[in-house]
Structure formats: structure tokens, C-alpha cells
């Protein structure tokens, strides 16, 4: 009966087609997983770039402030040193005099635990 074998052939062809359809779906799935990876990578790279720029801006701000702090400290120090120099010049003579006075100041005393021998 050729019609029988024809039918069977038709069915077999249909099965083949069906298998192809399912196979395509499976390939789609595999591709989707790859896409997930590549799209994720792109998003991540964008995020990283954005964070990088943020950080660079942050650093630029901070370094500016450090410079200004350093200058203000230096200025402050210069003032203090100038004040010290001034004070020194004003008082040095008096202090030298005091030192020399004490060099010749003598207080000969016997130790308080020693008794006089009579």
C-alpha cells in the first residue's frame, strides 16, 4: 500500500520538522544565556566608568583642600616664629644677666641632718 508508506513518510517528515523547531528553541536559549553575559558585562563596564569618574572628581576636590591647609599652616608657623624671634630679642639681655647673677650666687649651708660638733 503506497498510501500507507506515504502517510508514514508524511508523519516522519512532520516529526523532523517538529524536532527542528524544538532545536531552534534550544539554540535560542543558549544564545540568550550568552547575551545575558555580554549585556551584563556592558552594564558593569558602564557602571565602573561612572564610579571611576566620580572618584576622580572626589580626589581632585580633596587634593585642592590639602594644598590650602598646608599653606595656612605655613603662614601660621611663620607668624609664630616671628613672634618668638621678637620675644627673644626683647628678653635676651635680661636672661643673660639673670644667669650670670646666679652663677655667682653662693649659699654655703650645712646639710640639715648634720649637727654641729661642740
Amino acid at each position, binding site marked *: 500500500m503506497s*498510501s*500507507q508508506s506515504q*502517510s508514514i513518510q*508524511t*508523519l516522519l517528515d*512532520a*516529526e523532523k*520538522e*517538529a*524536532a527542528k*523547531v*524544538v532545536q*531552534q*528553541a*534550544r539554540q*535560542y*536559549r543558549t544564545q*540568550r*544565556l550568552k547575551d*545575558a*553575559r555580554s549585556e*551584563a*558585562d556592558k*552594564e*558593569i563596564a558602564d557602571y*565602573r566608568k561612572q*564610579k571611576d569618574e566620580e*572618584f576622580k572628581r*572626589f*580626589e581632585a576636590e*580633596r587634593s585642592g583642600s*590639602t594644598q590650602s*591647609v*598646608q599653606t595656612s599652616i605655613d603662614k*601660621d*608657623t611663620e607668624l*609664630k*616664629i616671628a613672634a*618668638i*624671634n621678637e*620675644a*627673644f630679642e626683647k*628678653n*635676651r639681655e635680661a*636672661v*643673660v644677666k*639673670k*644667669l*650670670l647673677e*646666679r*652663677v*655667682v650666687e*653662693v*649659699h*654655703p649651708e*650645712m*646639710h640639715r641632718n*648634720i649637727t*654641729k660638733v*661642740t
Partner: protein
Amino acid sequence: MASRSGPLNDDEVISETSKMVAFIKQEAQEKAREIKVKADEEFSVEKAKLVRQETAAIDASFEKKRKGAETSIKIEHSTATNRARLRILAAREQHLHTLFEEARKQVVLIAQQDEKKYGELLEGLILEGLLRFLEPDVLVTCRPSDVSACEAASKRASEKYSQISGRSATIKVDGSLPKDNAGGIALSAGSGGRITIHNTLDERLTLLEDSMLPEIRTDLFGKSENRKFYT
């Protein structure tokens, strides 16, 4: 489907075959759809997971970097403040040094200016030594130029010593201090001169440089602004 027994005729076969073909097709498409839907789901989940993981890691690393930068800035500030403080201290130290040098230059003048006063000074220095030693035999060493002044001073000192302590001492004077010394005396006593007292003007100045430091500081630079405790 008409249920009747017997083999099917050709038309029926074709119709049944078509139905089966349709059925097979439909099943395949449903299955394919299922697979696709699931694939899309998995796509979203997987992508979200990857993005979340990596962005969390990126955030963490930037946070660390930021903290590191802040710490290093704090360190820089602290180093700058410290350096400034050290500069100020160094300036003060330098001034002290200048001052002490000046004092040392002027110490030599003491012995030269007033003879009577210098004689009294020698007497006081010798007496100080005697009262420290409490020894009966003492050797006084002075500059060669001071020998006679010293001998006179020793006599007076020895008398005062006996008055104060009730003890007596014999003093020998020796002019072996280097002659470019500023003045003053050294004393030695004890068997073989084992105890010595350096009562030279130079030595006294050195001791004063140390013991007068707090006073000098306030006299030169004013009281300390940060200090809270004084004994």
C-alpha cells in the same frame, strides 16, 4: 471520530494523517514556546545576578579606595602640623643656644671686673665645698692667677667653716687649673683626693643652663599656653 470497525479508506487515512501532523506541529510549537519563555526568564535572572554581583564588588573596592584616600589625607595633615611644631621648637632651641653662648662669653668677665667681689665669691665657693665634704684635709685648685686671692679666701672660709660646723679643715691651695679657664675652683678631699667638687664658674653655668630651663622659657617666650599643671 466515527467509531466503526474495519480498515479506513484512503480519505480517512489522509484526514487522520493531517490531524496527526497538525498535532505534532502544535506540540512542537508549544514546547518551543515553553523553552523560549524559560530562556527569557533565565536571561533576566542571570543578567541581574551578574550585574548585582559585580557592581557590589566595584562599590566595595571604591569604598576602600575612598577610605584609603581619606586616611592618607589625615596623615598628611597630621604630618604637616607636626612639622610646623618641630620648626617652632627648633627656632626656640636655636635661640637658647645663642643665649647660652653669650652667657659663656661673659662669664670670663666676672673674675676680671671686681677684685673684692671675686675674692668674696672664692670664699663662698670654698666654704660650699668644705661644708659638703666635712673632711679634715682639702685641696683647693685654682687658676695660677688666683692663687694668692685663693689663699686669703681659704683662711676666711676655714674660719667660717669651723663656726658653722664645729669641725676644722686644713686647706692646701694649688694653682693648676688651666689659665684660660673662666675662674672659680675645684676642690678634692678624701684619701688620695677621691672626692672632687667642681665649683668652677664654667661648671656652675653648665648646671644652671639645665636647672633654670623652665624659668628661662617663661622669661624668654612667655608662659606656655597649653600647659595645665604646675607643681
